[in-house]
């Protein structure tokens, strides 16, 4: 159970971290606010999940121990969320793919047999619904906008598409929890998620690569090179001055 919660928490933490990198550098002030808003939601969700993990483990750890004192191989986030921001089209495509997945996942998690997780999902779903609306709208704007924006959006899709497979390919942790009715059957969710993606991509007049090779491993701690640098930056103070209150 805690392994699964860490998957969810690490997704939220790492994507929130990436979005935080935009703060002050976005294409418009309104976008600075919107991206920061999503970063705030995700970081807040990560916090609740780490707190729950600490409670379940009962080892006297706190939320920050999970974020700041684990090394890359202990992180369970999907590869997609650790990918660099790139240009704004990259950020939007990464966000849209994640939001589409995250929305249907959390909607299903509201029915989880784990009461705490169901409650958490219901609360987060409100935020994630807004995230999905935001990223879908921007998919449309960029796809429909100008030739330049259309080309950039298409390029981002081609470069990020091989991180979509991992989202709906259950690992052992997920398979075991599906049997217990705690987490949904990802293979079933896949249909809904893909339908949403197809709908938005079509509206944005862009196409997904066919038969692309899918990268995976993040959920089990095998990451891309990017995560190490994220952690080096994020964990710097906690590592340089261990055991202090900040």
């Amino acid at each position, binding site marked *: 159970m805690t392994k699964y919660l860490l998957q969810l928490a690490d997704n939220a933490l790492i994507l929130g971290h990436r979005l*935080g990198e935009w*703060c002050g*550098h976005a294409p418009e*002030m309104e976008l600075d606010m919107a991206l*920061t808003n999503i970063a705030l939601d995700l970081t807040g969700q990560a916090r609740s999940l780490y707190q729950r993990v600490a409670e379940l483990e009962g080892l006297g750890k706190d939320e920050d121990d999970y974020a700041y004192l684990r090394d890359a191989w202990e992180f369970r986030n999907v590869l997609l969320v650790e990918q660099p921001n790139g240009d704004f089209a990259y950020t939007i495509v990464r966000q849209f793919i994640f939001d589409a997945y995250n929305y249907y996942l959390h909607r299903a998690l509201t029915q989880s047999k784990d009461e705490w997780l169901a409650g958490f999902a219901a609360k987060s779903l409100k935020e994630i619904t807004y995230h999905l609306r935001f990223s879908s709208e921007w998919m449309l*704007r960029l796809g429909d906008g100008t030739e330049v924006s259309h080309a950039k959006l298409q390029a981002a899709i081609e470069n990020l598409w091989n991180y979509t497979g991992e989202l709906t390919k259950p690992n052992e942790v997920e398979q075991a929890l599906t049997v217990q009715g705690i987490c949904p059957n990802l293979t079933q969710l896949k249909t809904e998620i893909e339908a949403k993606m197809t709908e938005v991509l079509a509206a944005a007049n862009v196409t997904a690569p066919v038969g692309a090779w899918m990268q995976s491993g993040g959920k089990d701690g095998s990451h891309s090179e990017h995560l190490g640098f*994220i952690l080096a930056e994020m964990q710097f103070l906690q590592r340089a001055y261990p055991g202090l209150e900040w």
Partner: protein
Amino acid sequence: MTSLNFEAIFQSKIDDEVKIEPKDWMPDAYRKTLIRQISQHAHSEIVGMLPEGNWITRAPSLRRKLILLAKVQDEAGHGLYLYSAAETLGADRDDLVQQLLTGKAKYSSIFNYPTLNWADIGAIGWLVDGAAITNQVMLTRTSYGPYARAMVRICKEESFHQRQGYELMMAMAFGSPEQKAMAQDSLNRWWWPALMMFGPHDSDSPHSDQALKWKIKRKSNDELRQNFVDVTVPQAEYLGLTVPDPDLRWNEERGHYDFGKINWDEFWSVVKGNGPCNRQRIQARTKAYEDGAWVREAAMAHAEKKEQRKMQPEAASKAA
């Protein structure tokens, strides 16, 4: 009515504490002064996101990270709100942003200093927001209605930021010896620039007299600076930190702290573009603006196409 009459009516409203509203007659110089001041304030909020944003990815706890993200987001909100207030005077946000990027418009010089250790995030909240509030509380009673109302909302959020900044300083100052050293280092670097935020001495302040008469300002630079020092010195003492001013002492007779001479050469040098980060700040803003051009163009093109698509079926049905 002659313009003299207009001006007399305008001044009598000000004297009677009646707020000036966007559609009211106002002297050109009043309008210009306000556009300059409000847009400088907006620019300061936007540029001010950079030194703090510098630490978002390195915030040492999830709680601090959330607080910092929320704070920087508030600043973007203040910037937007203030540009809107400037637009009520006939200015255009895009023009104002251009003035910032070309260096024609100024912003608060304090943001040309770097954030070098984590305590700087506390010091900015405590000292920079503290100094800003001293100024802005006065501005909640400024004579121009939209500006005064914007300030009421902004002040509420700023005082929240200031408390959070001070709370961060407490964690550092009462923490480990290294943390205390960071806090002291940060106070050493931010103290004097914070005092400079109030601007030149009254005797050297070119815009002050008229601004006071029009009640755009209600207190002089030196009065505000003195208020700030009087409030802040005991706060530093509570933290056990040393204010980097050997001449600082309580003056029983005046009922105020006396403090040392401000290095105005440094102030003017930073205003003229020679601060440690002037170039980097404008470069960062310019990069965001230029890199974002295609995004803004796409959003506009999409909105136009959407509008056209809405119109087309109508036109088609009329033709039929």
